[in-house]
């Protein structure tokens, strides 16, 4: 009888790919490999340029012209070094930062890190929605319309989308930061002088200058970003084999973040500082002031950049916070779960958005105080998180061959201590100074 389990024969098979086809396929595969890793680093660094950040950069440019540009290079290094440690931990251990803190330091420290994080992040979310309100004012849209729509948009985006879709949208948002580049070009700055000030340090010892400097560092390196970055690599299942791609992602993210900061400072320095309009306190005001100085387009692009940054950060901050808390306490977390599978995760996320946007809508909202609180909160929370990171990344039983090298440790600890000193200083200044605080 002629039946049986058939084995196909080599001769019968056609459709062998030609050499060219195969080479194209391998190129595509390599691109896919890189794209599979890229994302967390680029997104995290760019979210650093959030509403609070842009306001600080604007003030830095308006008050001190090009004088603070030199700080960008050391800041890039600091940002890269701290972020890279988290990326490495995520890639090597496959666990989130709050997971690791929980497993290695126990329940109570984790709980306090998370509770602090919740309130600090909530204050930051308020700041983002305030940024949305300020940007939309330039386009003559009332905050009572703009903020609820923004909140809905952010909520739907994350609840309805899958991780991949959301990431693509976030990567697109990164590109929109380029509006600041055009804004700066329209402002017609003196590029030669800007370049000179970037390379040659220009240090002053008056209090205002130092406060502004610490504000720059403080808004650029925010504690929650480490959790987001590490979780991003974990959720993408990036393994040690793709560590070099992950590193490239973080490096590219840190540099591109600082390039945007450069253009924001140059833009405001060439216009507001040059025309003696130095008492700007937030990015919305700056956009308004740019219109008569550099033309309608410069101001519009500036406001658009602020809107994009605020929306972007407003989508990521609540997400990151909900993640951190659920991971640490052992609740299901992550966008790949449905609402029913991870109710606490989605509820936390929703509360952060509703309260964050709601506060901005209060007619007599103490926005100024909340902004200061978010800055001080970041400052207090940051050293704690960085020390946890350094303790963890040096554990050989966790990291194996990927522990920090001595040289790396030195750079990282110097960065950490500098950040701690600077942020304590800015927190102190924010508390005890009556005048406008940096980063407002």
């Amino acid at each position, binding site marked *: 009888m002629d039946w049986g*389990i058939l084995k196909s024969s080599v001769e*019968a*098979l*056609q459709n062998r790919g030609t050499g060219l086809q195969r080479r194209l396929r391998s190129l595509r595969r390599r691109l896919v490999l890189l794209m*599979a890793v890229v994302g967390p680093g680029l997104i995290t660094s760019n979210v650093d340029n959030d509403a609070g950040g842009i306001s600080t950069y604007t003030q830095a440019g308006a008050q001190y012209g090009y004088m603070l540009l030199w700080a960008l290079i050391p800041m890039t290094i600091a940002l890269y070094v701290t972020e890279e440690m988290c990326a490495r931990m995520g890639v090597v251990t*496959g666990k989130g930062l709050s997971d690791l803190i929980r497993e290695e330091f126990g329940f109570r420290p984790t*709980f306090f890190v998370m509770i602090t994080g919740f309130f600090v992040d909530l204050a930051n979310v308020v700041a983002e929605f305030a940024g949305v309100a300020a940007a939309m004012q330039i386009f003559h849209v009332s905050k009572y319309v703009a903020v609820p729509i923004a909140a809905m948009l952010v909520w739907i985006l994350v609840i309805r989308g899958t991780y991949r879709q959301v990431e693509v949208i976030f990567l697109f948002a990164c590109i929109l930061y380029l509006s600041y580049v055009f804004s700066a070009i329209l402002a017609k700055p003196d590029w030669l002088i800007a370049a000179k000030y970037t390379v040659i340090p220009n240090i002053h010892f008056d209090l205002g200058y130092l406060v502004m400097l610490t504000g720059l560092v403080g808004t650029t390196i925010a504690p929650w970003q480490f959790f987001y970055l590490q979780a991003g690599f974990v959720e993408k299942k990036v393994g040690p084999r793709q560590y070099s791609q992950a590193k490239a992602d973080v490096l590219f993210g840190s540099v591109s973040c600082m390039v945007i900061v450069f253009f924001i400072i140059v833009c405001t320095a060439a216009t507001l500082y040059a025309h003696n309009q130095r008492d700007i306190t937030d990015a919305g005001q700056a956009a308004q002031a740019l219109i008569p100085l550099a033309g309608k387009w410069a101001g519009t692009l500036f406001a658009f950049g602020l809107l994009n940054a605020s929306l972007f950060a407003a989508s990521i901050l609540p997400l990151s916070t909900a993640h951190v808390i659920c991971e640490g306490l052992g609740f299901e977390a992550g966008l790949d779960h449905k609402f029913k599978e991870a109710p606490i995760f989605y509820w936390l996320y929703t509360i952060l958005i509703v309260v964050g946007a709601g506060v901005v809508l209060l007619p007599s909202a103490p926005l100024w105080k909340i902004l200061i609180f978010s800055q001080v909160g970041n400052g207090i929370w940051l050293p704690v998180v960085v020390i946890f990171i350094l303790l963890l990344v040096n554990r050989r039983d966790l990291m194996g061959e990927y522990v920090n090298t001595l040289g790396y440790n030195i750079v990282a600890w110097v960065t950490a201590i500098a950040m701690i000193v600077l942020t304590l200083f800015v927190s102190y200044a924010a508390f005890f100074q009556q005048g406008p605080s940096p980063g407002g």
Partner: protein
Amino acid sequence: MELYATELMGVRTYDAQGNYVGRVREFFIEPAEAPNRISHFLLSRGRFQPLVAKHNQIASISEKKIQLNVGEKALEIYQPNESWLAVQKDLLDQQIIDTRGRKVVRVNDLDLAEQRTNGNVELRLTQVDVGLPGAVRRLLQGVVPPGVVRKLQRPLPPSTIRWEFVNLIEPDPLRRVKLRITHEKLEDLHPADLADIMEDLSATERQSIIASLDEETAAAVLAELDARLTKQIVEDLDPEKAADILEEMAPDAAADLLADLSKETSEELLDEMPGQEANEVRELLEFDPATAGGMMNPEFVFVGENSTREEVVEWLRRQDRNLDQLDTIVLLDNNVQYSGAVPVTRLLLAAPGEPMGALKMEPLVSLPPDADEKEVFQLFDKYNLRMLTIVNKDNRPIGAIAVDDVVSRLVKK
């Protein structure tokens, strides 16, 4: 009475003479002796070397004090022991697999029960707490009095897992042997559930579990996992083990997996596989993944069109293969060319002597291996197919695409 591990941490211990010995800092279980008995209590006493009390040296236990039935001199000095499971270090705050709830959870606390055995009291680990009551105890124990903690946790919904259903995750294979950790219970889970569990673990944990599963289960799990994860796992496996697992997979699944690997790794694995299986996979690898050939499985059931229903059923019965997924049988004519397909329901309902040729579906559909996947989808949609035969130029069947292959392809899009 029920006791909690957090409550007992730090409790003062007294010897038979009533002298203070030290505070409890850790509990150990010796799985080789008894899977759930607290076998040793670590007692620390400041700057002195810590002591160990054995389970048969305990006279009574409460959340306020532990009473020994021997003098302090009878206790041994603590020596670290790899074959002891440390409750605080190895269990609290760590992730475990809940084999009944089929998910990965984090341990907040442990529930212990007293058991009296001739003259002494033993503690048995009954369940692990993964819910809010445990979290509240962890947060408040030592800050507010134990009685208040108990009152506070009472209204909270309990969430516990019986110790028998707990599967520990230990990446170190040596320690796993010493602690008698096996993943046998995981092999009883559905591969899709096991794959979900794998997604929640870190790379090293995943790796250690896959390596300890039997090849058949491992193959089924890999087939359910996301392509990127599968790739990572196979790359990190010992090539011999990886080849064994690939051998257990359906050739089309194995080919899809190998197509994602580098040329060298994929060749290395194919060389490790037995010749026949390796050849099947090699042939499939030649097809573009987006064609019918790239989707088909070269293993399918076919019979001659002249054979009777009875003969076919008899033959199927004798196969020692798993035919759970079988729902269509391919027919061949006398020239070994494709002549039709018979759904098993028709076979089931046919009279014993009926020839297979009389049962085949109309119209006769098939595709060549270089047909685009879109054509495959359209045919499945148009004729409500459950299986599609792929034929070569000479109209000989070389493979078949099942409806579940189509579904998973469409889901990925």
